[in-house]
């Protein structure tokens, strides 16, 4: 890959610029020490979080004291009521029919319950993880985190670690119907944990916004989830079972809908292409050591994904 064009006459600094803050590793960057962030783009300081994302793409940058070892980053995000309000405001600016309405209280905003936000997390422009955060039907807050490694060679241009959080859909058409356009808007980043070197102890994981004793929960409406790579190069097993929804309506549905039958899984990479070396059995996929995030779509045999009425419990080992 050719290096980025560099303008020779550039003079971005002023005599009043503070020196860029350098993060001494290990560190947790959160609201109290947000001055450690050297760059925040498409986002703003938040009163109770580290930051809120304002735009479809946000960037967070920080300098580290030991770039030569690479870094391991853990990013915590929250989707709450405020996130939904901000997303509605953003969308109303995009849609001309809504933009005409001056009185915000009269805006006919779309219902987001059961929909999801797809966020691609990258470092130095390279996709590292994908969060498919389902908005709970009761609109209660959901939170999740992803962990990824930024190897030293990606930091070769300097000590700036630049993390991107992007709303663009990942490859393929899975989940498009319930995906929130510009889903990053409104999401809060709670913390960025940075450790020196490449931690070899974290496992492949799913960031769906909900977890319980049976693993991650992927909402039926979303129709798919993404497995993010863990450290090291070990193979990954994905096991999917049906997860009952709570409440009386859900109990009724459980009685009405078929519960027997195998669960079929499909696996793709982020570009929507098949992943070589995958072995699939009913409710189970054995994946080779992951080079990047992969998408998995569970379906009850003989049933269209869109017709599913059950959430999925996902266990990774």
């Amino acid at each position, binding site marked *: 890959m050719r290096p980025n*064009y560099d303008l020779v*006459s550039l003079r*971005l*600094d*002023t005599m*009043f610029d503070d020196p860029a803050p350098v993060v001494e590793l290990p560190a947790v960057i959160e609201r109290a020490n947000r001055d450690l962030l050297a760059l925040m*783009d498409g986002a*703003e300081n938040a009163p109770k979080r580290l930051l809120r994302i304002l735009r479809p*793409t946000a960037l967070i940058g920080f300098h580290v004291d030991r770039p030569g070892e690479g870094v391991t980053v853990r990013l915590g995000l929250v989707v709450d009521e405020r996130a939904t309000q901000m997303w509605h405001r953003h969308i109303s600016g995009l849609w001309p029919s809504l933009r005409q309405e001056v009185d915000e209280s009269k805006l006919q905003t779309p219902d987001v319950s059961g929909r999801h936000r797809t966020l691609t997390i990258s470092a130095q422009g390279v996709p590292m993880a994908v969060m498919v955060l389902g908005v709970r039907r009761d609109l209660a807050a959901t939170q999740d985190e992803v962990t990824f490694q930024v190897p030293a060679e990606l930091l070769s241009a300097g000590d700036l670690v630049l993390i991107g959080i992007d709303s663009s859909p990942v490859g393929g058409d899975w989940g498009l119907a319930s995906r929130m356009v510009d889903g990053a808007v409104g999401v809060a980043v709670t913390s960025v944990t940075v450790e020196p070197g490449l931690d070899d102890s974290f496992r492949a994981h799913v960031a769906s916004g909900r977890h319980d004793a049976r693993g991650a929960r992927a909402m039926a409406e979303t129709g798919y989830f993404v497995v993010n790579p863990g450290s090291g190069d070990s193979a990954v097993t994905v096991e999917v079972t049906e997860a009952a929804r709570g409440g009386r309506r859900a109990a009724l549905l459980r009685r009405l809908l078929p519960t027997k039958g195998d669960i079929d899984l499909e696996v793709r990479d982020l570009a929507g292409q098949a992943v070589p070396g995958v072995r699939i059995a009913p409710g189970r996929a054995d994946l080779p050591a992951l080079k990047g995030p992969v998408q998995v779509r569970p379906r009850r045999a003989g049933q269209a994904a869109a017709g599913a009425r059950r959430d999925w419990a996902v266990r990774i080992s």
Partner: protein
Amino acid sequence: MRLLTNYGSFLNTAPGFWKHQVLPASERVILVEAMSQDLRVTLRNLTLANALRRVERARIVVYSGADEDWNQVVWTYFNADEIAQMCYAYGAESVLDAHKLVDERVQGTRVPHVVAGVDLGGPLPESAIPRAVFDQIVYATTCRMAKAPRLDDSVEMKLQRDKVEARSLEFARIYEALISNNDVVALISSHVDYDNFGLAVEAALRHDVPVIFTQSTGSLKAYTLFPERAIPGAPVRAGLTEDIGAFFESRIWANRDLLRRSAELTQSRAKATLGRPSWWRAGGGFSSIDIRDAAERSAVRTYAAKQVGLDASKPTVSVFNHAVSDALGTNKEAFADLGDWFEQTVAWAREHPEVNWLFLDHPQQDLYDATEFFDGLAMQNADQAHMSFFRSLELTKNALISLTDLVLTVRGSVSNEYPALGIPAIQCGWSEWSGCGFTTVTDSVDDYFRALEDHVEGLLERRPLITADQIERARLWAWFYRSATDIPSCLIHPWRMGESDWLFNTVTAHMLQVEADGDLAFSTVSRMWRRRDPFLTRFDFDLPGDELANQMDLTTA
């Protein structure tokens, strides 16, 4: 957003305050425009008029109003009554609803309407305005009302033009009558463009009346067009451009060592979106610049290039589209109109894939274009991998700064912002700062494309296209614009305070509780007027360096 619930106490206080702040009136007249719906604009015009009445004995005559076109196309809440109330509270002798009068005259209604001793309702002679100037103002007004970059031969456009022309003839008559039948000290106007504003300005200058041109930004900012410095045959702002360039050279650039720290501070604040660095682009979350150096710029460029679909390894020329019907022809320009420049640049870019081209639409284009001008060009060039079309606000300022290696504009403020960061800019029209030496200014279409070709080659050869001196000039201009020519006054307050109770309560409190002696609105208007300076200045730049430093209370640490 407008949050105005307590206008009455301001209106009750102002007459008592101004009664003894100005010299007794005479037969002479200061003409004041009050045609903006935003009361902050009229507040500036009237305060400036009263500041001038401390120097010149005169009475205030106001021309105001809005017609159906303006109410449909530009304004959303124009309220003639509350504007008139402010005018009378500031001592106006009369407030003429010029739009209403023009409508009556166009309809053939002849009702006596005496203003400043002139019956504007009766027969009036034709204005002596040169036909070409009149036609240009009619054309520009029609484009603005039609929200179109240029007029075509359609019936709709012709009808619109006829309507504007008929009204313009009457505007020209009444302004000419008002000015030629009175001893006019000055005309104060927030705009110099379009028929309702521009024909008054044109008549004033033709009758040797200075025009004070207030700005709807900052605190109190105003330029003055002195008739003797107008360039014959050139657009109305051209003389101002030359005046500003000369002043900048002799007073600002000459004092650069003294002013360097201030300019750096302004630049630093501009990066953080402080000091209203961009007229159109608000919002700290996407308009501030966090990038500190080339390495950080490169890291952000990777993302930005991906977002716009361009190759980060190639130089990028950013072309900033204008609000396409905004104030056409009020300064020297190389192309026939703003749209013509953009279209020809797009066509040239198609043939030059050796660099990236990023075309950016104006943040407020919706208010100026109903023809989908930008979207049409984007569609026509969708197959060009080296060209991308985006709305400016879709990209953050960090993304724009990280991508842009050359700026193209006719007269946009980007040609100050980017050179201040070491990113070169080509202008193909004059602006307030185009005589200040930090952009490449081209005067003809051929000139423009020659300069563009040279700059593209320069980018590819990695040749510096802007010098360290030019970067410093750009930063000094930013300081000059945002500080030296922005007058803080207890009677005005920053634009950012909004059209609000907050603003008017504060002005009222100052009128009631603070003695006005030495208010900069008074002293700076007096200095500008006596010296015939082209703008208000916070400081006296005729002072020797050490005295100027003293006056500026410069911090040197």
